[in-house]
């Protein structure tokens, strides 16, 4: 009888330790998933910030004489399309992130085409209003880069965690799923200029 009691106590103690361990692992995963979600909301914020700047930009540019309408319409259309693509923080799968990125990148490229064509309108470029807008747009693009990078870091931590033994067991049990990354845009990275002429 005494021996049995001892056995039960041992088993209970082991179970208790395992349970604590389990709970800790689970909670660790939850907080890492939460970090990914909050990084995502920052990403959405900065993209929204860009969306909010566009009507102002379009109006400013519209005022310039004979500004080509097609470039402007392209930006407006790309903005409208990007507004449609929303990703719920609980559905950050690879496909959803890719879809979001595609829509936003289309807007990025039409925006940069607009800014290139503004180069041909020095009067417009010189206005204080446009200079302010340009500073805001550049700052927003920098914020987008930063928040995407922070999001990718959070996702990397999370994805590594859910695949690592023994957390993968807990992750499988509770349905933690791998999250998508932002891919680096082609040509969008600022590559340092390498001058081969001076290498010799």
């Amino acid at each position, binding site marked *: 009888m005494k021996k049995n009691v001892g056995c039960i106590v041992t088993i209970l103690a082991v179970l208790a330790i395992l349970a604590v*361990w389990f709970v800790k692992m689970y909670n660790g995963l939850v907080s890492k998933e939460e970090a990914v979600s909050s990084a995502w909301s920052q990403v959405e914020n900065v993209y929204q910030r860009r969306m909010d700047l566009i009507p102002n930009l379009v109006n400013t540019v519209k005022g310039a004489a004979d500004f080509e309408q097609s470039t402007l319409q392209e930006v407006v259309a790309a903005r409208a399309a990007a507004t449609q693509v929303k990703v719920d923080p609980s559905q950050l799968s690879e496909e959803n992130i890719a879809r979001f990125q595609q829509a936003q990148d289309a807007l990025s490229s039409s925006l940069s085409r607009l800014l290139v064509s503004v180069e041909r309108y020095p009067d417009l470029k010189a206005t204080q209003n446009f200079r302010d807008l340009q500073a805001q747009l550049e700052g927003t693009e920098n914020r987008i*880069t*930063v928040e995407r990078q922070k999001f990718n870091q959070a996702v990397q931590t999370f994805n590594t965690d859910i695949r690592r033994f023994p957390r993968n067991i807990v992750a499988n049990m509770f349905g933690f799923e791998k999250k998508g990354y932002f891919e680096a845009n082609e040509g969008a990275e600022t590559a340092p200029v390498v001058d081969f002429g001076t290498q010799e």
Partner: protein
Amino acid sequence: MKRHMIQVICSVLGKKAGFVSMLAACVLLFSPSMLSASVQDIPRPSDPPMLVNDYAGILNQSAAGIESLLRAFADSTSNQITVVTVPDLGGYDPAQFAYEIGERWGVGNKKYNNGIVILIKPKNQNGSGQAYISVGYGLEGAIPDAVCKRIVDDEMIPFFKQEDYAGGLLNGLKVILPLAAGEISAKEYMPSSGGVIAVFVAFILIVLVVSLVSAASKKGKGDRFGGPHDEGIGSGLGTWWLLSSAMNGGHHGGSWGSFSNGSGSFGGFGGGSFGGGGAGGSW
């Protein structure tokens, strides 16, 4: 029986400890690689940390005065403004360079993210001059990008074009300090001294400008001055000297240029975070 139980517990605990250390190893292995980019290009904070890091050597003897000004500002408002000058950006975009400094050094308070990085790369054989103001998350509202752009273009670059880097920097700070002081009011952070801050900052700025002007006018007679006995209280430089000595806890160095080296660190950067806000310009 009891011993058996202890053995089991110990072995489980041992496994747990092993697991913990495995995790720690993972963290150590993975965290640097995530931040990697190319860490060696971004300068490290000096040791002890300073708010003015004149790696390009363009601020000369003004560096110490600006350091004192920024320390006084950090003490009174908790906003940390750091100035970094570099001879070369190592292929980085100035925005990215300034952001990386802010984020890695942790400029600003961790709770309020109220740091500012002012990056200056002088015009030299490595290319055109670049100036950038990077603003921490907490000050983005107080100093929006368009304002940063105007400060750089209108307040700083005209001086930088004439290679008056300290003058341009001070002219920019004249706008940045009051702006930054408005966001987290001193009331939130230090309940006792509410409206005094603006007056204090204005006072410091006036004293600093006067002292720099008088320092410049005395340049012909030599830069050194031995101590409080050599200067009347009425002289701008003497007043500034007394003020800065008071702020540095009565520390007395030998000359104008050396006292900041002797005054130690300002308490270090606070772990503030940056989101890519700010703006810059080139000349």
